[in-house]
């Protein structure tokens, strides 16, 4: 569910639902990557909770940056 080709984002509910879904997926994806990185680094270095916590925060920041890029008018895909 995403922006319809050629709808220019002016469509009613379906387009906005698609953008909302995309934003959610972007945040979750960045969190998954951050948590996976932190957890595996912790397992490798044996410092269990600390890198996990740090990378959790970094992952959230990366997710928010992904969403910011999604709405950045400069990088907006010219659909």
């Amino acid at each position, binding site marked *: 569910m995403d922006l319809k080709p050629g709808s220019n984002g002016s469509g009613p509910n379906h387009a906005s639902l698609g953008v909302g*879904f995309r934003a959610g997926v972007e945040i979750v994806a960045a969190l998954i*990557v951050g948590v996976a990185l932190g957890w595996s680094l912790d397992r490798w270095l044996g410092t269990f909770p600390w890198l996990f916590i740090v990378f959790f925060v970094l992952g959230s920041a990366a997710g928010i940056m992904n969403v910011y890029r999604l709405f950045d008018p400069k990088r907006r895909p010219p659909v």
Partner: protein
Amino acid sequence: MAAEGKTMDALGQFELNTVFGPLGAAVGFTQANAHMLLAVGIITALVMFGMAQRAVVPGRLQSAAEGVYEFIAGLTKGQIGEHEGRRFVPFIFSLFMFVLMGNLLGLLPYAFTFTSHIAVTFALAFIVFVVITAVALVLHGTKFFGYFFPKGAPLWLAPIIIPVELISYISRPVSLSIRLFANMTAGHVLLMVFATFVVMVGGLGIIGPFAAVLPLAVNVLLIGFEILVACLQAYVFAMLTSIYLHDAVHLH
């Protein structure tokens, strides 16, 4: 599989089983592999037979093949640039057609949706990830690593910005694969749930068959919606790939 007893098995449709008897079982050839081969076969047949005639006034098959190609070529060149985009058209065309065929084949009765498995979508997204990284490295060399630290940012912010940018970059294939997988899985679960309702409600004595028309009508609407989602998700996959390739080529 649908309504055995009073339970509902909406996820059973995603189970992998081997096909082609003992030979398929020996090599672990599942119905997902069979559908992938079928999709590749259909795409190849469409392009080969569609373009066999090379008529000036195209027939139906040729218009279909040309239409899809023009669509993807326009999308790629529009995103990446008229000149640089040209060499990526075959890559994005293959990806788009494979995902589209996977989504659409899965809507046929008895068919299996291989794009509803995260292993498949992640493999596709990982190919995209490797390609965009390789393209950026080949075109820009070590300047590519400047991507992770924007020019003009204060140096003391580097320990925060670089990991965040790195995670944001690595999350691209993850979000690409989750989006496709989640859309296809959710759609097929929804279809299965309402199909099970038809069977369950239909067994409720005299009024059952009349009441079962309701979930059946919902399923008819859902199939239409799923065809839209199938095309849209293939389009989104292709478009995001070309956006990432744009970033790799122009680097900003």
